[in-house]
């Protein structure tokens, strides 16, 4: 293999595939990045066997020559060193040449690195996915959906299925649900497809986080292909494969309350700031818990007590409070996470009692909801 390649394009691609490379892996060759040159261009691959990312640099794009392939071929280079080298090379063009025993020379300007490469035939093959049954979704919407749900996945391995986000494709609609059993985030979106089949899969939270990092903010469509144990996200020059989690995701729809006893409408931003202030003292305490009390005339009191440190109370004027009066305690962190995810202006919070889950929704939008379980004080 012998190529001359635009350094910036290479650096960007390396950065993307590095998201899948883990320094700790049981398969040594996966600490490397695989580089393959064909007459169409250069493909970089990184993988930790859960996530695999493939980034393609075409020979030319928008009239600009990006790669000159002098000799096709393939090599695996140590990711850590390769990424650092590419970042720091002096010139706009990088030459990569693979000699016998995969000894690789990287040249740019007067700098020359000799790296010991590895045999690309030892690199595991990426899953072969037939590109049928494609769902399409705009990139920016996909990123929003991920941001609004993935924070709620469980970080504990006690119930591994909850470390993923449940994606249901049904009747042209995608429903994403994440819960760590203390709070739940749900987001629905219309999805473009000619595929009548429904799918119900669980994608590891970590995969979605990494995917979100390498997607740009355009509204170009992302193609999504679902198979029995893999999901593939495909953009113009990027393939992102993720393993799916085994097992059945718990049925959560019936756990979401449909009636309510107390409804509060508040400005999300003011409410978030009040919770943030109240949690200042609670953060040091055991559980970071704040208490919400409805007072008269639509006033809500937010308070928190840490016996050793002190207490804080703040009154907020809500848009409206309807129904029974209420005193409820909950984790300030869960509340702040939920409010940040909703990013609406006015939100409605519906309670069914101090020991029952409550719902947060944007006032005029039912495509998303956040659910939080309260804290019981003794």
């Amino acid at each position, binding site marked *: 293999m012998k190529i001359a390649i635009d350094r910036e394009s290479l650096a960007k691609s390396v950065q993307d595939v590095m998201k899948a490379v883990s320094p700790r892996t049981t398969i040594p060759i996966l600490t490397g990045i695989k580089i393959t040159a064909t007459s169409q261009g250069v493909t970089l691959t990184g993988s930790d066997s859960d996530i695999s990312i493939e980034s393609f640099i075409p020979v030319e794009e928008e009239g600009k020559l990006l790669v000159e392939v002098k000799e096709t071929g393939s090599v695996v280079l140590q990711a850590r060193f390769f990424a650092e080298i590419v970042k720091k090379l002096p010139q706009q063009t990088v030459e990569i040449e693979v000699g016998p025993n995969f000894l690789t020379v990287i040249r740019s300007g007067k700098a020359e690195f000799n790296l010991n490469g590895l045999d690309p035939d030892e690199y595991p093959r990426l899953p072969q996915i037939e590109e049928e049954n494609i769902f399409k979704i705009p990139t920016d919407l996909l990123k929003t959906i991920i941001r609004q749900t993935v924070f709620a996945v469980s970080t504990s391995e006690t119930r591994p299925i909850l470390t993923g986000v449940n994606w249901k494709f049904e009747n042209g609609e995608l429903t994403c649900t994440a819960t760590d*059993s203390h709070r739940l985030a749900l987001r629905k979106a219309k999805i473009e497809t000619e595929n009548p089949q429904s799918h119900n899969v669980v994608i590891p939270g970590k995969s979605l986080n990494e995917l979100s990092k390498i997607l740009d903010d355009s509204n170009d469509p992302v193609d999504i292909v679902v198979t029995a144990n893999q999901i593939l996200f495909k953009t113009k020059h990027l393939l992102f494969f993720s393993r799916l989690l085994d097992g059945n995701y718990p049925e959560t729809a019936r756990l979401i309350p449909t009636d309510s006893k107390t409804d509060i409408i508040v400005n999300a931003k003011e409410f978030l700031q009040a919770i943030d202030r109240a949690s200042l003292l609670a953060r040091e305490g055991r559980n970071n*818990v704040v208490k919400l009390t409805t007072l008269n005339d639509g006033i809500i009191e937010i308070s928190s007590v840490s016996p050793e440190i002190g207490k804080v109370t703040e009154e907020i004027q809500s848009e409206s409070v309807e129904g029974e009066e209420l005193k409820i305690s909950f984790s300030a962190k869960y509340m702040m996470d939920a409010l940040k995810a909703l990013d609406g202006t006015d939100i409605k919070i519906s309670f069914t009692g101090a*020991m029952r889950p409550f719902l947060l929704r944007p006032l005029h939008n039912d495509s998303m909801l956040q659910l939080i379980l309260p804290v*019981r004080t003794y």
Partner: protein
Amino acid sequence: MQKMYRKQGRIILHVDCNSFFASCEIARDPSLKEKAVVVAGDPKERKGIVLAANYIAKRRFGIYTTMPLWEAKKKCPSLVVLKPDFSLYRETSSKVFQFLRRISPLLEPASIDEGYLDITECDSLGSPLEIAEYIQQGLLQTLHIPVSIGIAPNKFLAKMASEMKKPLGITVLRKRDVPNILWPLPVKEMHGVGDKTAKKLNTIGIFTIGELAKAEEERLQQLLGINGIRLKERANGIDDRPVDPEAGEKWKSIGNSTTLPYNVTEERILLDVLRELAQSVSERMKRKRVVSSTVQIMIRYSNFQTITRSKTWENPFQEAEEIFQYAAYLLKKHWNGNPVRLLGIAALDVFDKKAAMKQLDLFHYEEEAKREALWKTMEQLRQKFGEDIIRRGANLFQQD
């Protein structure tokens, strides 16, 4: 003479650190001494609030605790803003209490920056006023922490007295001073009367402490429950609560261990022993009405090598079965199979059950929700008649 002195009753000091967080910061960095200093939540952000301010900030610039930081900065552009360092405050706090304990072991820390000290038996150290001066000077010189001290025959009056002169005040409040000094004050100034209680009292025409002292007991009880009666007593300068050194965080941990009659290598027998230990730890926790989130087990092998292993769970526990499950988990994980001669279980960092919380779980909350009506009723009864009026039947047997 000394006997006469004691017959008059108790002598209680309330020692209150002035602007504690700010004082700790200044003690650490004396160059701040002549500057306006506040401790505030995240100074980088606009939304931070003032958690503590030193007297220069308070007096010269009118800055108060809970004031938004941007407002404080507007009042004093040269304001020194520090992020809270709670570990420094805790460390300083424990040094202050250590100092006080050397005067009298009857010390009850009431919060991180204040405590009650019973010096009734300390006449050999000097008069109450001399002792207070010694404490004030001692804390200022050794720890650079200024305190105000109230001297009185009970905790309530001592607390009211220490509030009267800040910083570095020493105030004596005798019972016979109550009509002259306390009664003219607005009822809201009284320790134990918050905004809400004050508003309630206002509705029945009580605006001063004196009016509360003379109010009809029945009306107070109707309005505030048992607490109303207590407040009236306090307003009359009566408060017989003892200074209880164990009132705060008394039991750091509760544990039991047992030496086995012979060296054991069978897991089944070890588990039986753990079950019994869990039972006794649970009983002691219930008796003291505390819970814990951390279980520790101790294993001593026949060669006297001893290991302890602990794990913290998310929700606090108190029941024997839970403790046993956690201990058994630890044993299975850490026992190396060698013969064991002693086993122990301890609940670490126990805390008052009232401060305990349980994060409810989406898949199991129904069980808790069923008891909601019961909890509500219990809370209402407690508010009306006091903490001890009702307890769950199963817990009744745990009383001392």
